[in-house]
Protein backbone atom coordinates (compact mmCIF):
# COMPACT_ATOMS: atom_id res chain seq x y z
CA UNK A 1 0.00 0.00 0.00
CA UNK A 2 2.66 2.49 1.00
CA UNK A 3 4.57 1.58 -2.12
CA UNK A 4 1.55 2.32 -4.27
CA UNK A 5 1.02 5.70 -2.62
CA UNK A 6 4.70 6.40 -3.10
CA UNK A 7 4.49 5.64 -6.80
CA UNK A 8 1.32 7.68 -7.25
CA UNK A 9 2.70 10.71 -5.46
CA UNK A 10 6.06 10.55 -7.20
CA UNK A 11 4.36 10.05 -10.55
CA UNK A 12 1.96 12.91 -10.00
CA UNK A 13 4.78 15.26 -9.09
CA UNK A 14 6.60 14.37 -12.27
CA UNK A 15 3.36 14.65 -14.21
CA UNK A 16 2.72 18.13 -12.79
CA UNK A 17 6.00 19.42 -14.18
CA UNK A 18 5.62 17.52 -17.42
CA UNK A 19 2.18 18.97 -17.90
CA UNK A 20 3.49 22.52 -17.78
CA UNK A 21 6.04 21.89 -20.52
CA UNK A 22 3.61 19.85 -22.61
CA UNK A 23 0.95 22.56 -22.25
CA UNK A 24 3.44 25.05 -23.66
CA UNK A 25 4.10 22.72 -26.56
CA UNK A 26 0.37 22.23 -27.18
CA UNK A 27 -0.42 25.93 -27.02
CA UNK A 28 2.25 26.78 -29.57
CA UNK A 29 1.26 23.90 -31.82
CA UNK A 30 -2.41 24.71 -31.54
CA UNK A 31 -2.01 28.31 -32.62
CA UNK A 32 1.22 28.53 -34.61
CA UNK A 33 1.19 24.95 -35.95
CA UNK A 34 4.84 24.62 -34.98
CA UNK A 35 6.12 21.63 -33.05
CA UNK A 36 8.60 23.34 -30.81
CA UNK A 37 11.59 21.09 -30.13
CA UNK A 38 13.12 23.92 -28.13
CA UNK A 39 10.51 23.47 -25.38
CA UNK A 40 13.06 21.30 -23.58
CA UNK A 41 15.53 24.16 -23.70
CA UNK A 42 13.01 26.49 -22.11
CA UNK A 43 12.55 23.94 -19.36
CA UNK A 44 16.30 23.73 -18.74
CA UNK A 45 16.61 27.51 -18.97
CA UNK A 46 13.98 27.90 -16.26
CA UNK A 47 15.82 25.41 -14.08
CA UNK A 48 19.21 27.09 -14.38
CA UNK A 49 17.84 30.57 -14.00
CA UNK A 50 15.77 29.47 -11.00
CA UNK A 51 18.91 28.26 -9.24
CA UNK A 52 20.68 31.53 -9.89
CA UNK A 53 17.71 33.66 -8.85
CA UNK A 54 17.10 31.79 -5.60
CA UNK A 55 20.81 31.74 -4.83
CA UNK A 56 20.97 35.50 -5.23
CA UNK A 57 17.82 36.05 -3.21
CA UNK A 58 19.19 33.91 -0.37
CA UNK A 59 22.39 35.93 -0.41
CA UNK A 60 20.37 39.11 -0.11
CA UNK A 61 18.87 37.74 3.08
CA UNK A 62 15.63 36.21 1.86
CA UNK A 63 14.20 33.76 4.40
CA UNK A 64 14.30 30.25 2.95
CA UNK A 65 10.50 29.60 3.01
CA UNK A 66 10.01 32.45 0.54
CA UNK A 67 11.85 30.60 -2.22
CA UNK A 68 8.72 29.20 -3.85
CA UNK A 69 7.34 32.56 -5.05
CA UNK A 70 10.84 33.70 -6.01
CA UNK A 71 11.28 30.57 -8.11
CA UNK A 72 7.92 31.04 -9.83
CA UNK A 73 8.66 34.67 -10.60
CA UNK A 74 12.10 33.78 -11.92
CA UNK A 75 10.49 31.24 -14.22
CA UNK A 76 7.96 33.77 -15.48
CA UNK A 77 10.61 36.46 -16.00
CA UNK A 78 13.03 34.31 -18.01
CA UNK A 79 10.10 33.11 -20.08
CA UNK A 80 10.28 36.46 -21.82
CA UNK A 81 13.10 35.11 -24.02
CA UNK A 82 10.21 33.73 -26.01
CA UNK A 83 9.64 37.19 -27.52
CA UNK A 84 12.91 37.52 -29.48
CA UNK A 85 12.75 33.85 -30.50
CA UNK A 86 9.27 34.36 -31.87
CA UNK A 87 10.65 37.19 -33.99
CA UNK A 88 12.93 34.71 -35.72
CA UNK A 89 10.24 32.05 -36.03
CA UNK A 90 7.97 34.60 -37.65
CA UNK A 91 9.94 34.33 -40.87
CA UNK A 92 8.99 30.69 -41.40
CA UNK A 93 5.33 30.44 -40.39
CA UNK A 94 4.23 29.78 -43.92
CA UNK A 95 6.99 27.34 -44.76
CA UNK A 96 6.97 23.58 -44.83
CA UNK A 97 6.81 22.05 -41.37
CA UNK A 98 10.11 20.20 -41.79
CA UNK A 99 11.80 23.59 -41.77
CA UNK A 100 9.89 24.64 -38.68
CA UNK A 101 10.98 21.51 -36.88
CA UNK A 102 14.55 22.10 -37.97
CA UNK A 103 14.72 25.71 -36.86
CA UNK A 104 13.58 24.80 -33.36
CA UNK A 105 16.15 22.00 -33.41
CA UNK A 106 18.72 24.69 -34.21
CA UNK A 107 17.59 26.67 -31.19
CA UNK A 108 17.88 23.57 -29.04
CA UNK A 109 21.51 23.11 -30.11
CA UNK A 110 22.29 26.75 -29.46
CA UNK A 111 20.67 26.79 -26.03
CA UNK A 112 22.66 23.71 -25.07
CA UNK A 113 25.82 25.72 -25.33
CA UNK A 114 24.41 28.85 -23.81
CA UNK A 115 23.82 26.78 -20.67
CA UNK A 116 27.29 25.35 -20.84
CA UNK A 117 28.78 28.79 -21.28
CA UNK A 118 26.83 30.46 -18.48
CA UNK A 119 26.48 27.66 -15.95
CA UNK A 120 29.23 25.18 -16.78
CA UNK A 121 29.08 21.53 -17.70
CA UNK A 122 28.67 20.09 -14.20
CA UNK A 123 25.10 19.64 -12.94
CA UNK A 124 23.87 22.37 -10.61
CA UNK A 125 21.49 21.75 -7.76
CA UNK A 126 19.87 23.69 -4.92
CA UNK A 127 18.61 20.98 -2.64
CA UNK A 128 19.39 23.23 0.37
CA UNK A 129 15.92 24.76 0.25
CA UNK A 130 14.06 21.63 -0.87
CA UNK A 131 13.05 20.75 2.68
CA UNK A 132 12.25 24.32 3.72
CA UNK A 133 8.58 23.41 4.03
CA UNK A 134 9.21 20.13 5.80
CA UNK A 135 7.40 16.93 4.94
CA UNK A 136 3.79 15.85 5.02
CA UNK A 137 2.39 12.46 5.91
CA UNK A 138 -0.10 11.02 3.43
CA UNK A 139 -1.46 7.51 3.95
CA UNK A 140 1.64 6.44 5.76
CA UNK A 141 4.09 7.97 3.27
CA UNK A 142 6.28 10.98 4.02
CA UNK A 143 6.57 13.32 1.06
CA UNK A 144 8.26 16.72 0.89
CA UNK A 145 5.56 19.37 1.19
CA UNK A 146 7.23 21.13 -1.69
CA UNK A 147 6.15 18.34 -4.06
CA UNK A 148 2.53 18.88 -3.05
CA UNK A 149 2.92 22.62 -3.58
CA UNK A 150 4.18 22.01 -7.10
CA UNK A 151 1.27 19.70 -7.88
CA UNK A 152 -1.14 22.35 -6.57
CA UNK A 153 0.60 25.10 -8.54
CA UNK A 154 0.47 23.06 -11.72
CA UNK A 155 -3.22 22.37 -11.26
CA UNK A 156 -3.78 26.06 -10.58
CA UNK A 157 -1.96 26.99 -13.77
CA UNK A 158 -3.99 24.41 -15.72
CA UNK A 159 -7.25 25.91 -14.48
CA UNK A 160 -6.08 29.47 -15.08
CA UNK A 161 -5.00 28.60 -18.61
CA UNK A 162 -8.31 26.91 -19.28
CA UNK A 163 -10.24 29.93 -18.05
CA UNK A 164 -8.04 32.28 -20.05
CA UNK A 165 -8.66 30.35 -23.25
CA UNK A 166 -12.34 29.59 -22.75
CA UNK A 167 -13.75 32.57 -20.89
CA UNK A 168 -11.87 35.72 -21.81
CA UNK A 169 -11.92 37.93 -24.88
CA UNK A 170 -8.20 37.36 -25.49
CA UNK A 171 -8.75 33.62 -25.26
CA UNK A 172 -11.53 33.82 -27.83
CA UNK A 173 -9.27 35.73 -30.20
CA UNK A 174 -6.49 33.21 -29.67
CA UNK A 175 -8.83 30.36 -30.48
CA UNK A 176 -10.11 32.14 -33.56
CA UNK A 177 -6.56 32.72 -34.78
CA UNK A 178 -5.74 29.07 -34.19
CA UNK A 179 -8.80 28.05 -36.20
CA UNK A 180 -8.11 30.24 -39.20
CA UNK A 181 -5.42 32.84 -39.20
CA UNK A 182 -6.42 34.56 -42.42
CA UNK A 183 -10.06 34.83 -41.46
CA UNK A 184 -9.15 36.21 -38.04
CA UNK A 185 -6.94 38.80 -39.67
CA UNK A 186 -9.74 39.65 -42.04
CA UNK A 187 -11.89 40.40 -39.03
CA UNK A 188 -9.31 42.80 -37.68
CA UNK A 189 -7.24 40.60 -35.37
CA UNK A 190 -3.57 41.48 -35.18
CA UNK A 191 -2.34 37.92 -35.64
CA UNK A 192 1.34 38.82 -35.23
CA UNK A 193 0.60 40.13 -31.76
CA UNK A 194 -1.40 37.04 -30.87
CA UNK A 195 1.40 34.78 -32.09
CA UNK A 196 3.97 36.65 -30.04
CA UNK A 197 1.72 36.43 -26.99
CA UNK A 198 1.01 32.74 -27.42
CA UNK A 199 4.62 31.83 -28.00
CA UNK A 200 5.76 33.78 -24.97
CA UNK A 201 3.12 32.19 -22.75
CA UNK A 202 4.09 28.77 -24.11
CA UNK A 203 7.70 29.55 -23.35
CA UNK A 204 6.81 30.72 -19.83
CA UNK A 205 5.00 27.46 -19.13
CA UNK A 206 8.21 25.65 -19.97
CA UNK A 207 10.47 27.88 -17.90
CA UNK A 208 8.16 27.80 -14.87
CA UNK A 209 8.07 24.01 -15.15
CA UNK A 210 11.85 23.92 -15.15
CA UNK A 211 12.13 26.35 -12.28
CA UNK A 212 9.72 24.35 -10.16
CA UNK A 213 11.46 21.03 -10.71
CA UNK A 214 14.92 22.20 -9.81
CA UNK A 215 14.80 22.01 -5.99
CA UNK A 216 14.06 18.29 -6.23
CA UNK A 217 16.56 17.36 -8.92
CA UNK A 218 19.71 18.91 -10.31
CA UNK A 219 19.82 21.02 -13.46
CA UNK A 220 22.05 19.39 -16.05
CA UNK A 221 22.90 19.82 -19.69
CA UNK A 222 21.06 16.64 -20.61
CA UNK A 223 17.74 17.69 -19.15
CA UNK A 224 16.68 19.63 -22.23
CA UNK A 225 17.05 16.87 -24.82
CA UNK A 226 15.69 14.27 -22.44
CA UNK A 227 12.60 16.24 -21.60
CA UNK A 228 11.78 16.93 -25.24
CA UNK A 229 11.17 13.24 -25.83
CA UNK A 230 9.02 12.95 -22.73
CA UNK A 231 6.99 16.00 -23.64
CA UNK A 232 6.61 14.54 -27.12
CA UNK A 233 5.34 11.33 -25.57
CA UNK A 234 2.78 13.28 -23.54
CA UNK A 235 1.61 15.16 -26.58
CA UNK A 236 1.33 12.07 -28.75
CA UNK A 237 -0.61 10.16 -26.12
CA UNK A 238 -2.91 13.06 -25.34
CA UNK A 239 -3.35 14.27 -28.89
CA UNK A 240 -1.61 17.17 -30.62
CA UNK A 241 -3.01 20.57 -29.77
CA UNK A 242 -5.29 19.52 -26.93
CA UNK A 243 -4.87 20.91 -23.41
CA UNK A 244 -6.94 18.19 -21.83
CA UNK A 245 -4.78 15.72 -23.71
CA UNK A 246 -1.66 17.28 -22.22
CA UNK A 247 -3.06 16.85 -18.72
CA UNK A 248 -4.07 13.22 -19.17
CA UNK A 249 -0.96 12.39 -21.19
CA UNK A 250 1.29 13.90 -18.52
CA UNK A 251 -0.43 11.82 -15.83
CA UNK A 252 -0.05 8.63 -17.87
CA UNK A 253 3.62 9.24 -18.61
CA UNK A 254 4.40 10.40 -15.07
CA UNK A 255 2.70 7.45 -13.39
CA UNK A 256 4.08 5.00 -15.94
CA UNK A 257 7.62 6.14 -15.27
CA UNK A 258 7.21 6.12 -11.51
CA UNK A 259 5.76 2.62 -11.63
CA UNK A 260 8.49 1.37 -13.94
CA UNK A 261 11.22 2.83 -11.73
CA UNK A 262 9.92 0.99 -8.69
CA UNK A 263 9.14 -2.28 -10.47
CA UNK A 264 11.63 -2.64 -13.32
CA UNK A 265 14.17 0.17 -13.39
CA UNK A 266 15.59 -0.76 -16.80
CA UNK A 267 12.14 -0.30 -18.33
CA UNK A 268 11.95 3.34 -17.19
CA UNK A 269 11.91 5.08 -20.52
CA UNK A 270 11.19 2.00 -22.60
CA UNK A 271 7.75 1.72 -20.97
CA UNK A 272 6.95 5.29 -21.93
CA UNK A 273 7.83 4.70 -25.58
CA UNK A 274 5.87 1.50 -25.63
CA UNK A 275 2.80 3.42 -24.48
CA UNK A 276 3.46 6.02 -27.15
CA UNK A 277 3.71 3.43 -29.88
CA UNK A 278 0.61 1.67 -28.59
CA UNK A 279 -1.29 4.96 -28.48
CA UNK A 280 -0.30 5.82 -32.01
CA UNK A 281 -1.37 2.45 -33.31
CA UNK A 282 -4.67 2.23 -31.45
CA UNK A 283 -5.66 5.86 -31.44
CA UNK A 284 -3.51 7.70 -33.95
CA UNK A 285 -4.86 11.15 -33.18
CA UNK A 286 -4.26 10.72 -29.45
CA UNK A 287 -6.84 10.50 -26.70
CA UNK A 288 -8.19 14.00 -27.20
CA UNK A 289 -6.82 14.95 -30.59
CA UNK A 290 -8.77 15.89 -33.64
CA UNK A 291 -8.59 13.37 -36.44
CA UNK A 292 -5.65 14.18 -38.64
CA UNK A 293 -3.26 12.12 -40.69
Amino acid at each position, binding site marked *: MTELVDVVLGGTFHAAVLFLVAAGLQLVFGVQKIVNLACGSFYALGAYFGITAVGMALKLGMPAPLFFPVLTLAGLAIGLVGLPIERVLRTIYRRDESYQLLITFGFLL*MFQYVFRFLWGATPRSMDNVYMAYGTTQIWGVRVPTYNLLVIAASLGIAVALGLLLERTRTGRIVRATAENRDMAEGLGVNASKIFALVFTVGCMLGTVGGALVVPSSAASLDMAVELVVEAFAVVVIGGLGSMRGALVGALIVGLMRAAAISLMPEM*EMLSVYLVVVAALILKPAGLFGKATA
Partner: protein
Amino acid sequence: MSIPSIDISSPVRAQRSVLRVNGLWVLLGLLAIMALLPMVASPYAIILMLPFMGYGIALLGFNLLFGTTGLLSFGHALFLGTGAYTAAVLTFKFGVLSFELLLITAALISGLISLAVGALCVRYTRIFFGMLTLAFGMLFHSFLYKFYNITGGDQGMRVLRPLLLGMEWRGGKTAFLTGPFYYYALALFALLSLAMWRITASPFGLHLRAIRENAGKAAYVGVQIFRMRLAAFVISAVYGGIGGVILAVTTGLADPELAYWTHSGNLVFMAVLGGSGTFAGPAIGALAFVLLQDFVMSITQYWRFVMGAVLVLLVVFMPQGLSGAAEFLVNRRKGGR
Protein backbone atom coordinates in the same frame (compact mmCIF):
# COMPACT_ATOMS: atom_id res chain seq x y z
CA MET B 1 -0.59 7.42 -68.97
CA SER B 2 -0.81 9.55 -65.93
CA ILE B 3 2.70 10.92 -66.12
CA PRO B 4 2.04 14.14 -68.08
CA SER B 5 -0.56 15.37 -65.64
CA ILE B 6 1.97 15.20 -62.84
CA ASP B 7 4.53 17.15 -64.79
CA ILE B 8 2.04 19.81 -65.76
CA SER B 9 1.02 20.29 -62.15
CA SER B 10 4.59 21.15 -61.19
CA PRO B 11 6.31 23.14 -63.94
CA VAL B 12 9.04 24.20 -61.52
CA ARG B 13 10.29 20.64 -61.30
CA ALA B 14 10.36 20.31 -65.06
CA GLN B 15 12.59 23.31 -65.40
CA ARG B 16 14.88 21.93 -62.74
CA SER B 17 15.23 18.57 -64.40
CA VAL B 18 18.18 19.80 -66.46
CA LEU B 19 20.20 20.05 -63.27
CA ARG B 20 18.74 16.85 -61.90
CA VAL B 21 20.24 14.87 -64.71
CA ASN B 22 23.54 16.29 -63.60
CA GLY B 23 22.97 15.21 -60.01
CA LEU B 24 24.55 11.81 -60.48
CA TRP B 25 27.52 13.27 -62.33
CA VAL B 26 28.06 15.86 -59.65
CA LEU B 27 28.19 13.13 -57.06
CA LEU B 28 30.38 10.78 -59.09
CA GLY B 29 32.68 13.68 -59.92
CA LEU B 30 32.99 14.41 -56.22
CA LEU B 31 33.81 10.78 -55.54
CA ALA B 32 36.39 10.77 -58.34
CA ILE B 33 38.10 13.75 -56.73
CA MET B 34 38.01 11.93 -53.44
CA ALA B 35 39.65 8.90 -55.01
CA LEU B 36 42.62 11.11 -55.80
CA LEU B 37 42.60 12.69 -52.36
CA PRO B 38 44.97 10.24 -50.61
CA MET B 39 47.77 11.42 -52.92
CA VAL B 40 47.70 14.93 -51.52
CA ALA B 41 45.79 15.06 -48.24
CA SER B 42 46.99 14.20 -44.76
CA PRO B 43 45.81 10.99 -43.05
CA TYR B 44 43.69 13.17 -40.75
CA ALA B 45 41.74 14.60 -43.67
CA ILE B 46 41.33 11.13 -45.15
CA ILE B 47 39.92 9.73 -41.94
CA LEU B 48 37.59 12.72 -41.78
CA MET B 49 36.19 11.63 -45.12
CA LEU B 50 35.11 8.24 -43.78
CA PRO B 51 32.24 9.57 -41.64
CA PHE B 52 31.23 11.55 -44.69
CA MET B 53 30.89 8.35 -46.68
CA GLY B 54 28.89 6.70 -43.92
CA TYR B 55 26.58 9.69 -43.65
CA GLY B 56 26.53 10.19 -47.39
CA ILE B 57 25.23 6.69 -48.01
CA ALA B 58 22.69 7.02 -45.23
CA LEU B 59 21.54 10.33 -46.64
CA LEU B 60 21.08 8.96 -50.15
CA GLY B 61 18.53 6.66 -48.54
CA PHE B 62 17.14 9.32 -46.25
CA ASN B 63 16.50 11.57 -49.19
CA LEU B 64 14.51 8.91 -51.01
CA LEU B 65 12.13 9.22 -48.09
CA PHE B 66 12.37 12.95 -47.42
CA GLY B 67 13.13 14.59 -50.76
CA THR B 68 11.44 12.14 -53.11
CA THR B 69 8.51 10.80 -51.10
CA GLY B 70 8.02 13.80 -48.83
CA LEU B 71 8.15 11.95 -45.52
CA LEU B 72 10.31 13.57 -42.84
CA SER B 73 11.72 10.94 -40.51
CA PHE B 74 13.03 12.21 -37.20
CA GLY B 75 14.21 8.78 -36.10
CA HIS B 76 16.41 7.71 -38.94
CA ALA B 77 19.41 7.32 -36.65
CA LEU B 78 17.65 4.12 -35.59
CA PHE B 79 18.99 2.47 -38.73
CA LEU B 80 22.49 3.86 -38.35
CA GLY B 81 22.40 2.36 -34.88
CA THR B 82 21.12 -0.94 -36.23
CA GLY B 83 23.95 -1.12 -38.74
CA ALA B 84 26.58 -0.18 -36.19
CA TYR B 85 25.38 -2.66 -33.59
CA THR B 86 25.06 -5.40 -36.19
CA ALA B 87 28.72 -4.85 -37.02
CA ALA B 88 29.62 -4.82 -33.32
CA VAL B 89 27.72 -7.97 -32.43
CA LEU B 90 28.98 -9.90 -35.45
CA THR B 91 32.65 -8.96 -35.11
CA PHE B 92 32.96 -8.82 -31.34
CA LYS B 93 30.61 -11.56 -30.17
CA PHE B 94 30.50 -14.00 -33.05
CA GLY B 95 33.90 -13.38 -34.59
CA VAL B 96 32.47 -12.82 -38.07
CA LEU B 97 35.02 -10.58 -39.73
CA SER B 98 34.06 -10.57 -43.40
CA PHE B 99 33.04 -7.00 -44.22
CA GLU B 100 30.79 -8.14 -47.04
CA LEU B 101 28.92 -10.38 -44.63
CA LEU B 102 28.61 -7.46 -42.19
CA LEU B 103 27.12 -5.28 -44.89
CA ILE B 104 24.65 -7.91 -46.05
CA THR B 105 23.55 -8.76 -42.51
CA ALA B 106 23.21 -5.09 -41.56
CA ALA B 107 21.17 -4.44 -44.69
CA LEU B 108 18.95 -7.42 -43.97
CA ILE B 109 18.37 -6.58 -40.32
CA SER B 110 17.73 -2.89 -41.05
CA GLY B 111 15.36 -3.97 -43.77
CA LEU B 112 13.45 -6.31 -41.47
CA ILE B 113 13.20 -3.78 -38.65
CA SER B 114 12.12 -1.08 -41.06
CA LEU B 115 9.48 -3.36 -42.53
CA ALA B 116 7.85 -3.67 -39.11
CA VAL B 117 8.42 -0.06 -38.07
CA GLY B 118 7.49 1.25 -41.49
CA ALA B 119 4.25 -0.71 -41.65
CA LEU B 120 3.15 1.25 -38.59
CA CYS B 121 4.68 4.60 -39.49
CA VAL B 122 3.87 5.16 -43.15
CA ARG B 123 0.17 5.21 -42.45
CA TYR B 124 0.82 8.73 -41.23
CA THR B 125 2.36 11.71 -42.90
CA ARG B 126 3.80 15.06 -41.96
CA ILE B 127 4.39 15.73 -38.32
CA PHE B 128 2.79 12.50 -37.14
CA PHE B 129 5.19 10.46 -39.22
CA GLY B 130 8.08 12.44 -37.76
CA MET B 131 6.92 11.94 -34.20
CA LEU B 132 6.25 8.23 -34.63
CA THR B 133 9.66 7.59 -36.16
CA LEU B 134 11.18 9.60 -33.33
CA ALA B 135 9.39 7.41 -30.80
CA PHE B 136 10.69 4.23 -32.45
CA GLY B 137 14.19 5.65 -32.60
CA MET B 138 14.10 6.45 -28.90
CA LEU B 139 12.61 3.05 -28.13
CA PHE B 140 15.68 1.50 -29.71
CA HIS B 141 17.99 3.96 -27.97
CA SER B 142 16.66 3.21 -24.52
CA PHE B 143 16.93 -0.50 -25.26
CA LEU B 144 20.59 -0.02 -26.16
CA TYR B 145 21.14 2.20 -23.17
CA LYS B 146 19.45 0.19 -20.46
CA PHE B 147 20.05 -3.44 -21.37
CA TYR B 148 23.64 -3.42 -20.33
CA ASN B 149 24.23 -7.16 -20.63
CA ILE B 150 23.31 -7.36 -24.28
CA THR B 151 24.49 -4.03 -25.62
CA GLY B 152 27.13 -2.76 -23.22
CA GLY B 153 24.92 0.16 -22.18
CA ASP B 154 26.45 3.62 -22.45
CA GLN B 155 29.89 2.09 -22.95
CA GLY B 156 28.81 0.78 -26.32
CA MET B 157 30.39 -2.19 -28.03
CA ARG B 158 33.70 -2.56 -29.78
CA VAL B 159 33.79 -3.18 -33.49
CA LEU B 160 36.77 -5.21 -34.64
CA ARG B 161 38.63 -4.55 -37.83
CA PRO B 162 36.91 -6.52 -40.59
CA LEU B 163 38.41 -8.42 -43.50
CA LEU B 164 37.88 -6.74 -46.84
CA LEU B 165 37.15 -9.12 -49.72
CA GLY B 166 38.22 -11.95 -47.45
CA MET B 167 41.72 -10.54 -47.05
CA GLU B 168 43.40 -9.54 -43.85
CA TRP B 169 45.11 -6.16 -43.87
CA ARG B 170 48.24 -5.63 -41.85
CA GLY B 171 49.54 -2.38 -40.47
CA GLY B 172 48.20 0.16 -38.00
CA LYS B 173 44.64 1.38 -37.72
CA THR B 174 45.37 4.58 -39.61
CA ALA B 175 46.99 2.69 -42.45
CA PHE B 176 43.97 0.42 -42.70
CA LEU B 177 41.43 3.24 -42.62
CA THR B 178 43.23 5.55 -45.01
CA GLY B 179 44.26 2.76 -47.35
CA PRO B 180 42.07 -0.20 -48.27
CA PHE B 181 39.03 0.77 -46.23
CA TYR B 182 38.90 4.24 -47.72
CA TYR B 183 38.81 2.93 -51.27
CA TYR B 184 36.41 0.17 -50.36
CA ALA B 185 33.97 2.65 -48.81
CA LEU B 186 34.39 4.97 -51.76
CA ALA B 187 33.60 2.21 -54.24
CA LEU B 188 30.61 1.18 -52.17
CA PHE B 189 29.40 4.78 -52.10
CA ALA B 190 29.70 5.04 -55.88
CA LEU B 191 27.88 1.76 -56.37
CA LEU B 192 25.06 2.72 -54.04
CA SER B 193 24.79 6.14 -55.70
CA LEU B 194 24.28 4.45 -59.06
CA ALA B 195 21.69 2.14 -57.55
CA MET B 196 19.85 5.05 -55.95
CA TRP B 197 19.97 6.95 -59.20
CA ARG B 198 18.35 4.00 -60.95
CA ILE B 199 15.71 3.82 -58.22
CA THR B 200 14.75 7.48 -58.39
CA ALA B 201 14.68 7.45 -62.18
CA SER B 202 12.52 4.32 -62.34
CA PRO B 203 8.73 4.23 -62.52
CA PHE B 204 8.86 3.45 -58.81
CA GLY B 205 10.64 6.75 -58.20
CA LEU B 206 8.01 8.47 -60.28
CA HIS B 207 5.31 6.94 -58.12
CA LEU B 208 7.05 8.28 -55.03
CA ARG B 209 7.25 11.78 -56.46
CA ALA B 210 3.61 11.60 -57.41
CA ILE B 211 2.78 10.68 -53.82
CA ARG B 212 4.80 13.62 -52.55
CA GLU B 213 3.13 16.09 -54.87
CA ASN B 214 -0.41 14.96 -54.24
CA ALA B 215 -1.14 11.68 -52.50
CA GLY B 216 -4.87 11.85 -53.19
CA LYS B 217 -4.41 12.38 -56.92
CA ALA B 218 -1.76 9.68 -57.06
CA ALA B 219 -4.07 7.19 -55.39
CA TYR B 220 -6.78 8.12 -57.87
CA VAL B 221 -4.64 7.22 -60.85
CA GLY B 222 -3.70 3.91 -59.28
CA VAL B 223 -0.57 4.44 -57.21
CA GLN B 224 -0.52 2.08 -54.24
CA ILE B 225 0.41 4.64 -51.67
CA PHE B 226 0.95 2.43 -48.66
CA ARG B 227 3.14 -0.09 -50.47
CA MET B 228 5.18 2.54 -52.24
CA ARG B 229 5.82 4.49 -49.06
CA LEU B 230 6.73 1.32 -47.22
CA ALA B 231 9.12 0.31 -49.99
CA ALA B 232 10.78 3.72 -49.84
CA PHE B 233 11.05 3.42 -46.06
CA VAL B 234 12.69 0.00 -46.28
CA ILE B 235 15.14 1.05 -48.98
CA SER B 236 16.13 4.12 -47.01
CA ALA B 237 16.62 1.98 -43.90
CA VAL B 238 18.88 -0.43 -45.79
CA TYR B 239 21.02 2.50 -46.89
CA GLY B 240 21.03 3.74 -43.30
CA GLY B 241 22.17 0.37 -42.01
CA ILE B 242 25.04 0.23 -44.51
CA GLY B 243 26.05 3.77 -43.57
CA GLY B 244 25.99 2.74 -39.92
CA VAL B 245 28.40 -0.14 -40.57
CA ILE B 246 30.89 2.24 -42.17
CA LEU B 247 30.60 4.69 -39.29
CA ALA B 248 31.08 1.94 -36.73
CA VAL B 249 34.13 0.44 -38.43
CA THR B 250 35.64 3.92 -38.72
CA THR B 251 35.34 4.68 -35.02
CA GLY B 252 35.73 1.08 -33.92
CA LEU B 253 32.77 1.56 -31.62
CA ALA B 254 28.99 1.26 -31.65
CA ASP B 255 27.44 3.39 -28.94
CA PRO B 256 23.83 4.32 -28.13
CA GLU B 257 24.39 7.97 -29.09
CA LEU B 258 24.21 6.78 -32.69
CA ALA B 259 20.50 6.10 -32.23
CA TYR B 260 19.70 9.17 -30.14
CA TRP B 261 17.14 11.56 -31.57
CA THR B 262 19.55 14.48 -31.83
CA HIS B 263 21.59 12.31 -34.18
CA SER B 264 18.49 11.89 -36.33
CA GLY B 265 18.19 15.66 -36.19
CA ASN B 266 21.72 15.96 -37.53
CA LEU B 267 20.76 13.79 -40.49
CA VAL B 268 17.90 16.12 -41.32
CA PHE B 269 20.29 19.04 -40.86
CA MET B 270 22.68 17.54 -43.42
CA ALA B 271 19.90 16.90 -45.90
CA VAL B 272 18.65 20.47 -45.69
CA LEU B 273 22.17 21.90 -45.65
CA GLY B 274 22.89 20.26 -49.00
CA GLY B 275 19.42 20.77 -50.40
CA SER B 276 16.92 17.95 -50.20
CA GLY B 277 15.29 18.80 -53.51
CA THR B 278 18.20 17.45 -55.53
CA PHE B 279 19.85 14.08 -55.96
CA ALA B 280 23.38 14.95 -54.90
CA GLY B 281 22.37 17.64 -52.42
CA PRO B 282 22.11 15.57 -49.24
CA ALA B 283 25.43 13.82 -49.83
CA ILE B 284 27.05 17.21 -50.41
CA GLY B 285 25.32 18.35 -47.22
CA ALA B 286 26.95 15.47 -45.36
CA LEU B 287 30.35 16.56 -46.66
CA ALA B 288 29.69 20.17 -45.72
CA PHE B 289 28.43 19.14 -42.29
CA VAL B 290 31.47 16.96 -41.54
CA LEU B 291 33.88 19.67 -42.69
CA LEU B 292 31.99 22.46 -40.92
CA GLN B 293 31.79 20.50 -37.69
CA ASP B 294 35.49 19.69 -37.81
CA PHE B 295 36.37 23.30 -38.54
CA VAL B 296 34.13 24.78 -35.85
CA MET B 297 35.26 22.22 -33.30
CA SER B 298 38.85 23.19 -33.91
CA ILE B 299 38.26 26.87 -33.16
CA THR B 300 35.78 26.78 -30.29
CA GLN B 301 34.53 24.35 -27.69
CA TYR B 302 31.06 25.82 -28.15
CA TRP B 303 30.80 24.28 -31.59
CA ARG B 304 27.22 23.12 -31.21
CA PHE B 305 26.17 26.70 -30.67
CA VAL B 306 27.69 27.64 -34.00
CA MET B 307 26.12 24.61 -35.67
CA GLY B 308 22.73 25.58 -34.25
CA ALA B 309 23.15 29.15 -35.44
CA VAL B 310 24.13 27.92 -38.91
CA LEU B 311 21.02 25.77 -38.97
CA VAL B 312 18.73 28.63 -37.97
CA LEU B 313 20.27 30.98 -40.54
CA LEU B 314 20.09 28.26 -43.17
CA VAL B 315 16.41 27.64 -42.62
CA VAL B 316 15.58 31.34 -42.68
CA PHE B 317 17.73 32.51 -45.57
CA MET B 318 18.68 29.50 -47.67
CA PRO B 319 15.97 26.86 -47.42
CA GLN B 320 17.05 25.23 -50.66
CA GLY B 321 20.45 24.47 -49.19
CA LEU B 322 23.84 24.59 -50.89
CA SER B 323 22.68 22.97 -54.10
CA GLY B 324 19.76 25.39 -54.25
CA ALA B 325 22.17 28.30 -53.95
CA ALA B 326 24.47 26.81 -56.58
CA GLU B 327 21.54 26.28 -58.91
CA PHE B 328 20.50 29.88 -58.44
CA LEU B 329 23.98 31.12 -59.36
CA VAL B 330 24.20 28.85 -62.40
CA ASN B 331 20.79 29.88 -63.65
CA ARG B 332 21.62 33.54 -63.24
CA ARG B 333 24.76 33.19 -65.26
CA LYS B 334 22.89 31.29 -67.96
CA GLY B 335 20.71 34.27 -68.65
CA GLY B 336 19.05 36.08 -65.79
CA ARG B 337 16.23 33.89 -64.55
